[in-house]
């Protein structure tokens, strides 16, 4: 039990050390990619030569749709003549901000809700499970579309609106996994023991169950993050996302680049698209790597692997843990 706590909190390298073979390299490659994007996002003002909505420097206007090279590393766009490199760099900030809002908030809502629901059981549990299952069954892009409709009117679009729109999709995922783990943890011997020595409910929930449950969270978090980047880009692509003078967003730039592509102006679409692919790949690699370490299953022991419960399953089983630890 003590080891479990330590493995979660014992520093970033613990999971890395526990992997073997390609799993380790997958995790490493993913971490490098993600770290690169995080650094770019943090230091965007230093890295990007221009602002995301800047169209001239030293009193001179940027050329429209200039090819890569010269003053413009990745060329300029044909809409508004922005610097593509700068917009790709600033775009990583937008993407990570939205993802951070979405993942953190859904974690903050989803995990406690899952623990409480699983621990308390009864009608509260049943109702919450039903509600979450309904949201879970909903195709995520459609849910995001509905929410961005609502939120763009409330918040006038922007990063916050996009982030909040994604929360709704992810809360049920944390909820399901955490709740099911809680239910199994509740029955486990160490919680029985804690209960037997008269530990109060809150302590049991907070200390024993929560600590146990939290282990599965990083994996879902990374998978969600990957999905969030894709969904944000899709919203931008459908013209429901962030406006170009609010922030740089890859999906929007890709949408505006559609006519360019067939006109031989390939750089306006290829680079934002590549950024999306690389970031999602990086995050997914981290998720895969973590999955192999946190779930020893995928190493050489006979346990069930962690897989996200398939989308669209409407389950109401009790006591059936999705993650066997």
């Amino acid at each position: 039990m003590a080891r479990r706590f330590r493995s979660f909190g014992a520093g970033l390298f613990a999971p890395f050390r526990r992997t073997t073979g390609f799993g380790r390299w997958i995790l490493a490659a993913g971490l490098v990619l993600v770290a690169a994007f995080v650094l770019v996002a943090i230091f965007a003002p230093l890295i990007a030569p221009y602002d995301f909505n800047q169209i001239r420097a030293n009193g001179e206007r940027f050329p429209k749709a200039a090819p890569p090279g010269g003053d413009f590393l990745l060329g300029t766009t044909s809409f508004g003549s922005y610097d593509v490199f700068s917009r790709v760099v600033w775009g990583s900030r937008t993407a990570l901000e939205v993802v951070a809002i979405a993942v953190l908030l859904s974690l903050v809502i989803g995990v406690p809700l899952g623990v409480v629901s699983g621990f308390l059981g009864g009608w509260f549990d049943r109702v919450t499970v039903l509600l979450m299952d309904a949201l879970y069954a909903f195709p995520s892009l459609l849910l995001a579309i509905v929410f961005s409709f609502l939120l763009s009117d409330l918040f006038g679009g922007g990063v916050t609106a996009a982030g909040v729109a994604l929360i709704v999709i992810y809360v049920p995922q944390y909820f399901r996994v955490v709740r099911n783990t809680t239910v199994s943890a509740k029955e486990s011997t160490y919680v029985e023991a804690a209960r037997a020595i008269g530990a109060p409910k809150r302590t049991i929930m907070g200390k024993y169950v929560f600590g146990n449950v939290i282990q599965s969270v990083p994996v879902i978090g990374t998978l969600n993050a990957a999905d969030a980047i894709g969904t944000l880009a899709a919203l931008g692509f459908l013209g429901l996302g962030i406006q170009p003078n609010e922030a740089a967003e890859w999906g929007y730039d890709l949408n505006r680049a559609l006519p360019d592509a067939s006109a031989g102006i390939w750089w306006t679409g290829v680079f934002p698209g590549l950024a999306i692919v690389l970031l999602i790949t990086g995050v997914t690699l981290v998720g895969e790597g973590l999955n192999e370490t946190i779930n020893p299953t995928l190493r050489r022991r006979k346990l069930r692997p962690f897989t996200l419960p398939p989308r669209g399953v409407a389950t109401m089983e009790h006591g059936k843990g999705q993650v066997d630890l």
Partner: protein
Amino acid sequence: MAASGGSLARYIVTRLLLIIPMVFILTTIVFLLLRVAPGDPVSASLGGRLSEEALDQRRAALGLDRPMLVQYLEYLREVVTFQFGETITDNRSVIDIVKDNGGATLTLSVAAFAVALVIGLPLGLIAGRFRDTVPDLVIRIFGIITYAAPVFYWGLLFQLLFVLQLDWFPVGGSASPETIFLVEDKTHILLIDAIIAGNSEAVVDVLHHLVLPAVTLGLLLSGIFIRLVRVNMLQTLQGDYIEAARARGIKESRVMRSHAFRNALVPVITIIGLQIALLMSGAILTEATFNWPGIGNELVQYINLRDYAAVQGIITMFAVVVVLVSILIDIVNALVDPRVRY
């Protein structure tokens, strides 16, 4: 663990009953979100073109001036009777949209599924079989990238390469205008209509148009399939009976074929069936990218017109379909796979 017939029946009934609250919750969410939003559906799609009086008239005609609760009950009644309302911008009923465009979506989905299976199953099995080797790594990375690249990005690259550069495939649409005109509409599914008509040129034309969209959507799904198949294969290989078979000196290739592959695939098939939600999200973007005349393409058009009523109707319809299909699969799963606990 053997289930008595009684508890199986009970399980199925419970599942079926679950449809009611699920659909109820989904429809309520959609209704609340789209109606709570400031600005009503009428001024969203028609405002600026009509006077205030005319807008009021239209609101009254659509019953939007009634109390929210009344509207909500009316909407629930419509959903229960499989009516999903009418669009505001062109007075089409959502049922008509499903009839007119559902065939194309179905064709695309089935074709994409086929592509994903053809790519995903063998690659997943190979990756699992040759775990931690170079092929495994390559296949896994392929799987991750196909999943990571947004459908519209693939679509864009494919169009540039195969349409504009090589001119192998048409830009978009489900068939050339002549084909659509000549083939008589019987089943609302163009490919089947063309086959019924015995018009081989039309069949080829339809298939020609189908290739790029199906491959694009299929690639997205194959990423998931590879992952699921691989993990199941790994598990199966750790099973006692594999060890036993090996211990009995059965040849490795035979162990793989008659024990591992089969056992790895059984659970995968049901899990894959549950990818319908992902399939739908992907289909919407694929249809928009390739001008594929399906429901998703219509949805995008109505989004652009800000026709809230149409968006509400189509999304509710999607939601209901997803719930029905996933519960159906749950039940089938329970019937087929004795390991499911109920």
